[in-house]
């Protein structure tokens, strides 16, 4: 699409509003008609409008990490069929993990939009199905154990639904009525997108709409370029690690990133993240590229919408295949979302030297969900449920404390499941749901607090947790301290066990009265904690975010018997700590 033709800025802005409204309405219709909590509350989906070449025009989130997966999936479908073999009334589908870059749960439907017989755009909808077959919980070591794989196919051919495919799906998933309910919701979203996009085209003319889309991309590119120019040229690197891959427990998985800034262009080189692993934490190359794009967007065009291709014009990504975030068949991918978050955090860590005012210290970087399954004693039916996402601590920034109890960077407008809802749906009792005092890393600006929950089983059930970042704790920046790591414990009656000290409790059977605890980490601090104003430390103590003992040990702040700041003792302690 040419971006050289001129189009008036008023029309561009009107079309921009129209595209945003289109994807927002697709999103709303998907959420309101979906059958599973992961779509409706966790917003594990993405909808979008794409050019006839598959480039992103507008994405409605959903899942911020899926910034890349949709466009790549549309392009793969285009390549597979060839433009000439895509017809009005078709709907294309796949859940191929190596195309979407994520796991098999992400069924992705794409509908071509035609006007006057010509293909002018696509609408696309990815959504997470609760079950796609495969091993129930536990560990997987290849893609075949993770469920049904649907290659690129036509779900609908010129208006005729492919019933063979529907029957195959229905036989291969554990909750077929839910899966097909979600499928219907996705088709609804596609129809909404098609209708609204055609309305824009009919009202303003195809040329005006297409030229406006090009202009919107140019605007995003200009914004990204101007926010890159003010980053000092140079090469910036950082390292971190994942605790393990869920199979080789306790064997760290190293991550190294390299960012090169030269004028208006940034190159993010992810060649030196670890090679793909045996365990189920791999993701495909589109996710590797998404890691770079998400970090880049956060640093250059964080509030520019719609998300579109223009924003990444001056980003180069070096991403060889065969890495944890560019894995190849038959690498297992079921828990694809965990490692990429730490890759993104590591990019921010690298950029601290260049742009300390724009980066953020490490965050808990994990969904912190527990998945449970069993037979519900109420209706004697099989259930699969999940608790969380817990939300956790976010890193501090120069000038701002970190935010507490908020979903990790993989997730966006993702809501947790309210206790009152979980207890109606599943045979569990939530005993505790609270902030974790002292979990936020110390700093001139303190890291946000993590969350702790304790869940008791009311009937026999199996729990899995695939939590990482227990040992690689959310780091501080600029002399800020690290936050607490994530943590999982299992309880047999009243006895807490150490069976899941690495965050991974796989296929643990619980009897009534048993339970499990999940704790999310706190955010890293920013700047020297001894420089945090004493009044703010006192306030943190009063509100219970920081204990008196941590205040003394980390911040050098001492309270007297009445709970007031002891100025003399504080000055003394701070001076001693600095020495």
């Amino acid at each position, binding site marked *: 699409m040419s971006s050289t033709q001129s189009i008036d800025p008023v029309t561009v802005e009107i079309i921009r509003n129209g595209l945003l409204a289109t994807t927002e309405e697709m999103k709303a219709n998907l959420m309101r008609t979906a059958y599973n909590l992961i779509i409706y509350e966790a917003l594990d989906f993405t909808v979008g409008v794409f050019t006839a070449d598959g480039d992103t025009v507008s994405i409605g989130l959903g899942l911020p990490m899926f910034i890349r997966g949709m466009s790549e999936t549309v392009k793969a479908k285009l390549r597979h069929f060839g433009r000439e073999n895509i017809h009005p009334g078709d709907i294309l589908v796949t859940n191929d993990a190596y195309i979407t870059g994520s796991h098999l749960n992400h069924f992705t439907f794409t509908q071509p939009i035609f006007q006057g017989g010509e293909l002018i755009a696509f609408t696309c909808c990815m959504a997470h199905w609760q079950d796609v077959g495969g091993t129930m919980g536990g560990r997987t070591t290849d893609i075949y154990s993770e469920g049904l794989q649907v290659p690129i196919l036509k779900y609908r051919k010129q208006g005729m639904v492919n019933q063979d495919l529907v029957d195959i799906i229905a036989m291969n998933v554990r909750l077929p009525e839910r899966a097909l309910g979600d499928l219907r919701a996705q088709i609804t979203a596609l129809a909404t997108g098609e209708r609204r996009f055609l309305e824009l085209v009919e009202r303003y003319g195809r040329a005006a709409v297409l030229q406006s889309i090009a202009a919107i991309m140019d605007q995003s590119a200009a914004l990204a370029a101007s926010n890159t120019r003010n980053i000092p040229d140079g090469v910036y690197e950082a390292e971190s690690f994942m605790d393990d891959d869920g199979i080789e427990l306790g064997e760290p998985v190293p991550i190294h990133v390299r960012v090169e800034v030269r004028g208006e262009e940034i190159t993010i080189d992810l060649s030196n993240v670890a090679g793909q692993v045996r365990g189920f934490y791999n993701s495909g190359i589109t996710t590797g590229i998404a890691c770079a794009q998400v970090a880049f967007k956060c640093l250059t065009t964080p509030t520019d919408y719609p998300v579109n291709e223009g924003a990444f014009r001056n980003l180069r990504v070096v991403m060889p295949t065969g890495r944890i975030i560019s894995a190849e068949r038959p690498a297992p991918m079921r828990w694809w979302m965990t490692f990429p978050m730490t890759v993104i955090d590591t990019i921010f860590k690298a950029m601290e030297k260049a742009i300390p005012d724009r980066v953020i210290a490490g965050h808990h970087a994990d969904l912190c969900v527990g998945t449970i399954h069993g037979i519900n004693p109420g209706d004697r039916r099989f259930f699969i449920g999940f608790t969380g996402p817990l939300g956790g601590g976010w890193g501090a920034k120069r000038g701002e404390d970190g935010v507490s109890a908020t*979903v990790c960077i993989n997730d966006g407008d993702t809501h947790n499941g309210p206790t009152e809802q979980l207890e109606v749906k599943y045979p569990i009792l939530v005993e505790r749901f609270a902030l974790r005092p002292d979990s936020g890393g110390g700093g001139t600006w303190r890291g946000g607090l993590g969350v702790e929950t304790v869940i008791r089983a009311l009937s026999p059930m199996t729990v899995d947790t695939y939590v990482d970042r227990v040992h690689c704790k959310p780091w501080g920046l600029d002399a800020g301290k690290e936050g607490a790591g994530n943590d999982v414990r299992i309880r047999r009656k009243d006895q807490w066990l150490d069976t899941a000290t690495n965050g991974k409790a796989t296929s643990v059977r619980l009897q009534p009265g048993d339970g499990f605890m999940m704790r999310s980490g706190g955010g890293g601090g920013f700047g020297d904690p001894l420089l945090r104003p004493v009044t703010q430390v006192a306030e943190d103590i009063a509100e219970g975010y920081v204990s008196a003992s941590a205040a003394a040990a980390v911040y050098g702040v001492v309270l007297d018997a009445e709970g007031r700041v002891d100025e003399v003792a504080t000055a003394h302690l701070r001076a001693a700590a600095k020495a």
Partner: protein
Amino acid sequence: MQTPLTHEADGVGRSTGAVQRPRRLRIAVDIGGTFTDLAAFDEATGQLLFGKALSTHDALVRGIQDTVERAGVAFADAQLFLHGSTIVINTLLERTGARTALLITEGFRDVYEIGRVNRPDAYNLFFNKHAPLVKRSLCFEVPERLRADGGVHRPLDEAKVRRLAQELASRGVEAVAVLLLHSYRNPRHEARVREILREELPGLFVSVSHDLSQEYREFERASTVAANAYVGPLVADYLARLEQHVAQQGFVGAFYVVQSTGGLFPVQHARRDCVRMLESGPAAGVIGAQAICAELDLPDAIAFDMGGTTAKAGVIVDSVPLTTGSALIGGYERALPVQVPMMDIFEVGTGGGSIARLSEGNALRVGPKSAGSTPGPACYGRGGTEPTVTDANLLLGRLDPDHFLGGAMRLDLTAARSAMQERVAAPLELDPVAAADGILRIAVVAMSHAVKAVTTERGLDAGRFTMVTYGGAGPMHASAIAREIGIRRVLIPFAPGHFSAYGMLFSDLRYDYVRSCFRKLADVDFAEVEAMYREMAAEGREAITQSAIKPGAVLEARAADMRYVGQEHAVTVELPTALFAAQDRTAIKQRFDALHEVRYGTCAPAEPAELVSLRSTSTGLMRKPPGRTTEHGRGEPDTAALRGRRQVYFRATGFAETPIYLRAALRAGDSIAGPALIEEHASTTVLAPGDTLRVDRFGNLDIAIGSDQA
């Protein structure tokens, strides 16, 4: 669907035994952000009276008295006083409420602070989440626990509650909110905590969650009850002072407050459930639109209100405004939810004061930042340097610099032009008129999204709706918005600038109840459901019959939130009582399937459905003012109505000489062809080329929108 439950004597007013003078007035006062508006109806003469004064946020009662006096009416002559105010929303947004504590189930102290853990501003590392109204140090845990079925898992530790009461007193707490898990299912623990607090701390403002909401979701209920407690002392005190004031003025009638549903409740209930008056003004506007549509026999309408900073749209379907179960206070990213029934109103940040600005890459954006009243639009001459929607209207000739607010304020055309030139036109290489026109186009599209949000996005065909337009800035943009959406008919009511107060005169007494009830439709026990509905209806009827005024009739309407088994989100389905009497599962299911099809374009008749919540609305019908009629004219405006002509810009014609009419001089039956402007005190109606306007017998401007020439 409404079914009369009782019929009582159709009599308004009550006997006081000591009536000195005929109490013939109904006075409605709406305190808005900028203005306090009054509408009064004189039963003796059939006359409608209006008043307007600047809101005095530091002295609200005085502001009301000023407005009353300015309108030439007196409380002593009134038998009914209806009131709505922004005091609740302002107290929440400005954080000026009481020092509030939250008592919550043990183990769940941080529910309110943690919230739903979502992060809408997904790529912004400098995101923020909601800031609770209660500090963590004032959140206290109560040892008790109910199970999801309402059974007691752990009994309430009453001694601990008494000790907590002492702690609250020592901490200088002014209001207490109580949220116990599963109280929507079993309110006994919450009720007992309230009793103990009342014994221990008489006079303290205590609010318990099940009074306001009996729907599951603990964070939303916590936020609702905290908001109520937070505003409670201030609002209760304000309402008490207002009661005292009107009594001193000789008022002996009934005093009702408008709720966010547009329904009325007595002031003594408003003092307890303060948060229900959150959106009283906007809701009353929709009630006004409903009243006008009833007179004209229009079942389907959009109620569109545009002011200085926002535009709001509500919708009336089959003569009933759509309501919703909750609202978010503040911007979405940091919103505090309030889970009480509300008029379903969609708001966008576009108003007369919205600023037009270029962002990086020369993208032209209009709003949501508003110039407000200080500094205001550039043309106000109070130091504003950025062009706004109002400046654009001035440059295009739609506002008269010498007759703004009836000439009370002069507008500075030069300032508007230079702001437009420097900030927008020159950088985009446009001339100022093209820039102004572009800004209005963008603003109109943004506002059209609000209208679409309540119509097309709900499966309703906006094109067959009439758009009733009010608010100071609404009539100026109504024609353009209607064209954008394909709406063919626009009504500008009499006194569009006083419309919320006017709407209050048409409100009914109303009580809404919701109970969570998770049951599969296929095997639901109708006796159980019937008992829940009857209990809610009985509560509503009792509340209404206890009020000072005997309503004409009490109606009960039933609805249920339903979904397909396994789905998360529910839709509210109106269900006639007869379906329950007949235990007609099939008909209930069909209604749900049909609504799902309309709203989302799909339904699954073969899939089982379930109930989530039962909703009951009790309405006590009030006597309404009869339609206000306007004197009949000769079919075309009097020469006295033509104030003059000036150059006004329309996209189809460019600048063209356009007649300016005075609304006050128009008569019923008068007809005007666009282009034209119709001016009144606080508003100007723009009639585009191709539009035709007819003044109806009630004085509304009834506009047939011409074909789109954009």
